[in-house]
């Protein structure tokens, strides 16, 4: 049984925080969240940490482990270098509540601003629709999102430049793409994507794709296709002329 040292951020909203050091024993197969729970039980009963499923599906235990946004329940201790303490911090993009817990409610407010799914008229008399699986496959990828908000945390437009008022972040471009590319949807979200939601702020660092625990190809399959649709509408005079002439 090996002993490991952890540096965990301790602090509350509105107060100065600091790292506190804890040492605990690590056994085979442990993940970072196990170690945090063990520290809670042994020496820091008041350590705040949000968690639920311990299976990488609820998206609750998002944090920054050694500077990398990760789900604590999916980060194996054996994958972390042993020569230095393990650093655990809350997500930097959102306001701190206490210790490792942040207030992510901004995300839910942003989601309300995105136009809802608006299907075409039903295909059948019984009020149902018919879709080809090949058309739905494309948006299925986006439905895997567990809303851990690691992509929001790593995005420098929010994290460093604090463009929360002008930019909705990768999570909501995935959400918008799931609606905008849906074979039944008839809503038009392009003007809002360009103006209010700030898709132009994304400079394609692909950091969101790298940290996604569900391996959603956020940049290539959601954000860039949305940027291309915005180009179609607002920046491509030839395509606009083609649309006017052909009506398509």
């Amino acid at each position, binding site marked *: 049984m090996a002993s490991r040292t952890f540096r965990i951020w301790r602090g509350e909203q509105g*107060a100065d925080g600091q790292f506190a050091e804890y040492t605990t024993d690590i056994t085979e197969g442990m993940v970072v969240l196990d170690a945090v729970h063990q520290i809670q039980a042994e020496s820091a009963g008041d350590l705040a940490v949000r968690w639920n499923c311990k299976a990488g599906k609820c998206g609750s235990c998002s944090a920054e482990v*050694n500077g990398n946004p990760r789900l604590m329940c999916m980060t194996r201790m054996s994958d972390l270098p042993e020569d230095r303490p393990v650093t655990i911090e809350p997500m*930097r993009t959102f306001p701190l509540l206490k210790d490792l817990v942040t207030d992510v409610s901004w995300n839910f407010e942003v989601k309300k601003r995105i136009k809802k799914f608006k299907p075409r008229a039903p295909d059948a008399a019984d009020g149902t629709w018919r879709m080809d699986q090949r*058309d739905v496959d494309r948006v299925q990828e986006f439905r895997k999102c567990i809303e851990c908000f690691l992509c929001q945390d*790593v995005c420098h437009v929010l994290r460093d430049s604090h463009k929360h008022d002008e930019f909705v972040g990768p999570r909501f471009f995935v959400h918008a793409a799931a609606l905008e590319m849906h074979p039944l949807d008839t809503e038009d979200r392009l003007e809002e994507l360009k103006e209010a939601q700030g898709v132009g702020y994304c400079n394609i*660092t692909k950091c969101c794709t790298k940290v996604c625990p569900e391996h959603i190809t956020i940049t290539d399959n959601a954000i860039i296709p949305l940027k291309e649709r915005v180009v179609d509408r607002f920046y*491509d005079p030839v395509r606009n002329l083609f649309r006017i002439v052909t009506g398509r």
Partner: protein
Amino acid sequence: MPTVAGALPEQQGFGVTRRRDNWWVVPAATFAVLSGFIVYSTWAAFQNAHYEFGNYLSPMYSPVLFGDSHHAWFGGKPSIWPAFLPWSPALLILWAPAGFRLTCYYYRGSYYKAFWASPVNCTVGKPWRTYRGENSLPLILQNVHRYFLYLAVAFIGILSWDAWMAMWFVDPATGTEQFGVGVGTLVLTTNVILLGGYTFGCHSFRHLAGGFLNRISGKPARQCAYSCSSWLNVRHMKFAWTSLFWVAFSDVYVRLCSMGIWTDYRIL
């Protein structure tokens, strides 16, 4: 939402991070390779010499619109070319592939990190406080990418023709053309294959091939084009780097053969 500060000290400033891996390696390598390519291609473009060897034509000079070459489409150097400007056929055409790469989504992400530190890598602090992204001038001009794509597709056709012509060698005894394959033929053919993989896997090409549609079923040609482009798009980074390297290598190969330093061996 108002700006968030929380209780954590901000990680503002170039290179400020809690990461412990070698996060600087990839942007540093990108900076070195892209800088090296820009320096070499600029030097090569201004040489106006050793860009052809027999039936081989360097991709950095193709197509030769005007020039003292049997590959030239419209004759020699145009008389209206200002005397004070250096002349090279490459100067007339290199802006198109350069513009295609400059505005490419993949390269944008890479050189924003490597050259502008915006940011230099994920969760690493930026040196700049202000950020406008591609939402306003000048970077909003990156949206011109699809027009460079149209030109790049034309270049694929031209370079394919060059690769085909690289298979026809003039017999010095009879003066007739004969089919053959030299090492240079393989070099130029590989070049157009890699460039094709890069161009047809471009995000804009994928969009125009079928990505703009919400319903692609029932359109087999579009579905095939979109699937093929998507397959290439997944490998876009690999094609971007290999094709960049191979363009430079193709120019080096033709140049050194033309200078008599390398010998072009015939395989067939």
